[in-house]
Structure formats: C-alpha cells, structure tokens
C-alpha cells in the first residue's frame, strides 16, 4: 500500500517539474502592472487572476487538440449515434456510482438535508433502478444534485487560487484540483480500493479506467452545444471560457450553501 502511494507521489512530482519547466519555456508569468502607475489595469489583473496565463494557454491548446481529435468526436458519437435509452442508462449508472462521493461531501459541508437526498437516491436507484440504470428516485421527488471536494473546501472558506488549466482535465484552480484528487482517491470507494490495495485486481483497474473514460465522454456530450456556442461567439475563446467556467463554478458553490427555496412566486392581481 505504501509502495503504490509512493509511486503516485513520485509521478505527481514529475508532473510538477514538468509544469515548472513548461512555464519557464513559455516565458514565465504574465506581466503584472504597477498598481501606482495604472490602478485600473492592476485591478483587472487581480480580477482575471491568471498569473500562469502563458503556460495555461499552452495547456489549453494541447487540450483543444485532444478534444478535436478524440474527445469531441467520441462525445458526438455518444450523443447522436448511440440510442438514447442506452446513453440515458449509462448516464444514470455513472451518476449512481458517484453517489458515495456526493454523500461524503454533503456531510462534510454540513448539509444533512442534501445527504439525505443523496442517500435516498442511492438506495432507490440501486434497487428499484436496477443498479442505477434507471433514475427512479427523481420521479419519486428526490432530485439529483452534484457535490465535490473542491466545493467542500470552498464551503470551509478556502479560496480558489489562480486559474489553472490542467492537461486533459481542463479549466480548474489549485483548490478544485486538490478536490478532484481527494474525490477520486479518498472519497470514492472504488478509487480508494484501487490505491489502498497494494496489488489491485486487474478487473477493478479495467473497470476504473473504463468508468473514467466513459464519464469524460458523457460529461463532454452534455456541453457540445454550449462550448461550440461560446467558441463561435467569442473573440478570445480562452478568455471567454476562463470567465464562464469561473462563474459557473461560483454559482455551483453558492448553490450548496443555499437552502432549498424556489423562486418567489409573483402574484398578479
């Protein structure tokens, strides 16, 4: 167990070295304006919060190439060619497999109401929904919500930190990147077994890899139109996406700290 964790740490360190080297090669940090000379430009710099922009743009281009060549075609195939009942079943199953992660995060965020919903959904969908293929819980009034450890850290008061584009994983920040790591190796039971066991079962490894791959395609297939639209109607797609992702993430975090309320009904006389 220690051995396999050590190997992971070593490969993480290799990634960190790669990031630093790439940053140096691409010209280091974005130039920071002098707050005394140009306070507005400085305020903009702080708001954009992307000191690693040159490096991030390189990774972004890499991700775009990966997306164009592999991920997006797969997502289009998944959305437009595969029969909808099949993809709906896959989507529901993947969602159901994420239940433990959502449940732990609901609890860590101090939201027993949301944890109750997640637990109820997991029990109903695993049994009545035949292993999660069918989302029976939504029809019974337990609507699905997402939760992750990046969000939990935010609820605990941790800031997002500078913008960070991760290879393959896309737009993120240090807080959410850590969150992703914790979700997939500690809070996810199957992920935890995978790293905690010194010699994981091959079947489990294969299952985890296929699950990650399918999850990526399923997620991508749901934002095909939205991303196409943003790219089409923006001058600098990188900058537009950076802003959109941040806002969407903030709204997602706010959602978890709000109590369940529907918008105030308007009474017309």
């Amino acid at each position: 167990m220690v051995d396999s964790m050590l190997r992971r740490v070593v490969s993480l360190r290799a990634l960190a070295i790669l990031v630093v080297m790439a940053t140096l090669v691409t010209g280091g940090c974005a130039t920071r304006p002098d707050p005394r000379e140009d306070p507005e430009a400085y305020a903009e710099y702080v708001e954009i919060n992307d000191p690693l922009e040159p490096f991030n743009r390189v990774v972004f281009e890499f991700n775009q190439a990966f997306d164009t060549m592999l991920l997006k075609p797969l997502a289009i195939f998944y959305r437009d060619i595969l029969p909808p009942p099949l993809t709906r079943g896959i989507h529901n199953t993947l969602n159901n497999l994420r239940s433990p992660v959502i449940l732990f995060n609901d609890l860590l965020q101090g939201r027993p109401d949301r944890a109750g919903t997640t637990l109820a959904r997991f029990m109903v969908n695993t049994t009545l929904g035949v292993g999660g293929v069918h989302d029976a819980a939504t029809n019974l009034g337990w609507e699905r919500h997402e939760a992750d450890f990046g969000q939990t850290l935010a609820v605990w008061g941790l800031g997002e930190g500078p913008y960070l584009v991760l290879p393959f994983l896309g737009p993120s920040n240090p807080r959410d990147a850590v969150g992703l790591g914790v979700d997939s190796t500690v809070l996810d039971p199957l992920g935890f077994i995978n790293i905690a066991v010194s010699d994981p079962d091959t079947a489990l490894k294969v299952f985890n890899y296929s699950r990650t791959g399918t999850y990526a395609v399923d997620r991508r297939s749901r934002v095909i139109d939205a991303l196409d639209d943003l790219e089409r109607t923006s001058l600098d797609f990188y900058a537009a996406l950076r802003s959109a992702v941040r806002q969407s993430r903030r709204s997602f975090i706010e959602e978890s700290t709000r109590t369940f309320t529907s918008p105030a009904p308007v009474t017309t006389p």
Partner: protein
Amino acid sequence: MTRPCCPRVVLITVFALFALILAAQPSTAVAAPVAAGAQDFIQSIANETVSLLQDESLQTEQRTERLGRLFNRHFAVEEIAQFVLGRHWRTASESERETYVELFRDFIVFGYAQRFGDFAGERLRVRGASAVDDNTAIVNSEIVRPGQQSNVRVDWRVMETNGSFQIHDVVVEGVSMAQTQRSDFAATIRQRGSVAGLNQALQQKVAQLRQQLGLTG
C-alpha cells in the same frame, strides 16, 4: 478495519435524515411591483420570439432582421456595450465608441440568430421574479427542451426606466453573458493594444457570423 457499527444507529440516522428532507418547505416571499412587471415583460418577449421562430413563411434574412428589431427594442444595447467595454470606454474616442456600439449590436444579433436557427420546439418557462432594488429585478426562467430531462436555467436582469422595461443581462446556468464578454473583450484589447484593434476583431467576427448564417452583403 473498523468494527461495523450497530445497525440501529444506522437506522436512526437514516430516519433523522429523512425527517429533515420532509421538514424542508419552500419559502414564499412578497413580490415587489417591479418584479411582477419584469416577469410579464419577459413572458411577452418569450411569446413574441417563439411565434417568430415558428413562422415558417419567413426566410433566414427576414427572420434575422425581425430578431434584430426585437433585440434592439428590448435589450439595453448601449448600456450593455458600455459595461462590456469596462474601463476602456473612457479612453476610447467618440468615433471608436460609435463604431464599437454598432459592431456590438450586430455581434449580438447574429450570435443569437444562429442560436435560434437550431430551434426545435424549446419553450421558456418563466418561474418567478425578485426585485433587486426599486427599478431592477431578476426574472428566473428555464428553457424546456423537448425530449431532454434537464432544463437550462436562465435568469434575466431587467431594469425599468419611465415605465418601460429593458434587459440588461442574461445569465445562463450562473454564467452572465455581459461578464463573460467583458473578460473576452479585455483580453482582446490587451492583445491588440487598443479599442480600434478590438473593433477590427469584432468586424471580422461579425462577417464570419453573417457568413455562417448564409447572409450576404
């Protein structure tokens, strides 16, 4: 390994959680007059737009033109354009500003026209509204797509001036269109060095959008 805990404790916990779910009740709030007005305003635009999109006698050109008119009437184009340009509005020359606002208008209209081009029976369900201050309200709505399980959440920032309403921002799933464009344009100005450079980029973009719509001239 830890010893499995007592099943009764688990059962009690589960019951407690269920009780909490049942106890959660939606709250109600009293709506301000501006909220009610804004809600009716958005509902009427939605009806107008859907009937425009459903009118199959219209050519792309006519439809785009009518959408443009609708947009110009109901969106506070100049205010939005100014917000999007941010601090660069003040440093821009009068002629740069004029060019910019006109390009911005086309940019939005052609961007929307394309989005509406893929119309497949979507419906806007207006869910409610809340007042921000005496003349500003946020109208909550969602786009209901036939054959899709999940709806798209859309919030409209509406302002009332002299009894008439105008849209100042559209927020889709928590993402403000004006805010995103502001970031986008700031980055473009940084790369191109000036508002004139931004106008150049906008012009190219508008030409590209027109071409994609199959419009000429």
